[in-house]
């Protein structure tokens, strides 16, 4: 078979591009806010009201800003399954583009903080800050832990940098919100850099068995360590008699 010439390739590419551009121009939903309004009407308005005014347990979305919407949607907390359900992180219900559209729409309802930008940080400073401000709930290894008053702080190992920056300022659920006086933007960047280090080194030295310390370690020592050795002596004893 003959390979297509470069000219043919170019022509094909140009055709494809014009076709996509034409489709996009014909579709009003290409405007993010407009697309967001549609999605909002279908998935959110039932709880938060037609124009985000809030209803019963569902808070008003006016002025919560892009940061809150992006956090709630990208961590899969929203849309909630029931008005009195407890939000928790899971697979997001929307793809990247739809989240951007919904976020743009919620932001258009009025003001509020922007989605924060995350810059490079110093993992060393981040370690000190993380251990001092976050480890008591999320555990030193970042795997999360139960809270004394019920509920749990989730694992941070799969949380994206932007989501961490958002969570620190928003303080979702039982988590306190940290303002810029308590943790500066540079400090938040450092915490994020440190969480990255923890994630990179999570399996340093072998299987991390939950990252929860002596409890799983004791279990492994008894069941696998001593367990295998007892099988060995059972075998040796059987060979002997």
């Amino acid at each position, binding site marked *: 078979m003959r390979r297509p010439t470069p000219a043919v390739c170019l022509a094909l590419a140009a055709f494809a591009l014009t076709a996509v551009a034409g489709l996009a121009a014909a579709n009003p939903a290409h405007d993010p806010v407009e697309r967001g309004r549609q999605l909002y009407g279908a998935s959110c308005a039932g709880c938060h009201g037609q124009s985000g005014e809030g209803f019963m347990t569902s808070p008003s979305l006016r002025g919560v800003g892009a940061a809150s919407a992006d956090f709630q949607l990208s961590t899969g907390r929203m849309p909630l399954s029931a008005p009195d359900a407890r939000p928790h992180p899971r697979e997001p219900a929307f793809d990247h583009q739809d989240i951007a559209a919904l976020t743009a729409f919620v932001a258009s309802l009025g003001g509020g903080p922007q989605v924060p930008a995350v810059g490079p940080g110093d*993992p060393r400073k*981040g370690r000190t800050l993380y251990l001092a401000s976050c*480890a008591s709930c999320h*555990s030193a290894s970042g795997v999360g832990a139960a809270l004394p008053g019920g509920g*749990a702080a989730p694992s941070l190992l799969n949380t994206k940098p932007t989501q961490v920056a958002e969570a620190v300022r928003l303080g979702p659920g039982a988590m306190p919100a940290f303002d810029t006086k308590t943790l500066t933007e540079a400090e938040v960047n450092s915490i994020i850099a440190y969480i990255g280090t923890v994630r990179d080194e999570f399996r340093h030295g072998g299987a991390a068995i939950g990252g929860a310390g002596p409890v799983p370690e004791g279990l492994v020592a008894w069941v696998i*360590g001593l367990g*295998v050795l007892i099988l*060995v*002596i059972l075998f*040796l004893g059987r060979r002997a008699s």
Partner: protein
Amino acid sequence: MIARWVRRKLEEKLRVSRWGLRKLDERLRIASVVREAVAKVFPDHWSFMLGEIALYAFVSLLLTGTFLAFFFDPSSGERIYAGDYAGLHNSRVSAAYASAVELSFDVRGGLLVRQTHHWAALIFVAAIVTHMLRNFFTGAFRRPRELNWIIGVTLLVLAIANGFAGYSLPDDLLSGTGLRIANSIALSMPIVGTWAAFLLFGGEFPGESIIPRLYILHVLLLPGLIAALIGAHMGILIRQKHTHFAGPGRNDHNVVGSKMWPTYAFRSFALLSALFAVTFALGGLVQINPVWLWGPFDPGTASAPAQPDWFMGWLEGALRLYPPIEFTVFGYLVPAPFVPGVLLPGLTFAIMYVWPWLDRLITKDRAAHHLLDRPRHSPARMAVGVWALSFYGLLLLAGSDDVLADLMGLPVLTVMKTMRIVVIVVPFLFAAAAYALARALRANPEQRLSGLRWKQIRKSDVVEEETRHGGS
């Protein structure tokens, strides 16, 4: 021609070395001892090798520990960590912590040996406990072996103490939390508390002295004691001969099994190899105590969940469950940690020490025994053992109440309050069940636990009565 010459030379050499050995033996008198040891008979039942697992774990600990000692710096003095770990690079931390992280990131093979050492420590204590349970349930502690039982309990105490000391050395956040608890337990002792805490820590907590002190305990005093007591334990074992299970041709005066050389020696060497294989495999494949994640100890920070190693976990559980009650005795205030932190372990080990004599009270049997009981032989002993196993097991579980709560999605407080009741009630239920089962099994000696029928459990007292009457 040449062959004959070679043979003559060899025979000459042999004569000379035999002569040398004889002269040596005239002075050391060792041949009879060796002959006796080589001819010593070991029982073949697998459960006699549990103690050997502990012995070889100790060997593994000595070897890996020596390697660690080349690199570990037991000092609270601060210095800069200049190694590869990004989260700590160029930070000022204690030399102990810095060198523990260096062992984990910068010393070739360091992490493998560190982890192997820690796994071997967990297995060491687990093997001691299992070995002790075998001796308990088969009555191996009875006359004339009370002394070896006492040495065994002491070895358990020393192993736990050494485990705690070693675990506390890296000066990380988790071990610092453990030391703070140890400090508050020491302080809780009436009258001598403050004095004891100051003696241990050389001043206010945390102070500069505790790490070097724990280090000397961990690498010299406690292992030295353990090694000496293991020597005594085995010397007595050889002197008294092994016990063995009853069977055809077995009685109180013989031991049926394999000779030390060559059969048993090879079997034992196989176990030594297996122990090294298992501890090094765990050390290489499964992370343990990632001190770089816990961070250096800092009294101002905390991480949750925070547990000690399993062999201290039952104490942690008791401390968590015990309500914050303080009371006064003879005008002295007894703070809350005293009961779970001092009284409970004190009573526990005291009862373990005197168990051979308590057992005489229960079974009314003061005779010497070289044949082992089957576990079913004494339902009362079985009930006590099962009570203790479940009580301390549940305390261990309660020590991880926050991990449980996370797994079950319940509030920690609910789990804790439930465990308070469970720890008191459930061991008695288990003990009662064990008593009934042991009695039924005793009445049906050929029966196994899995084949036991409900009718046999209910009727076991009747059957026992009948056999007793039939016998008289």
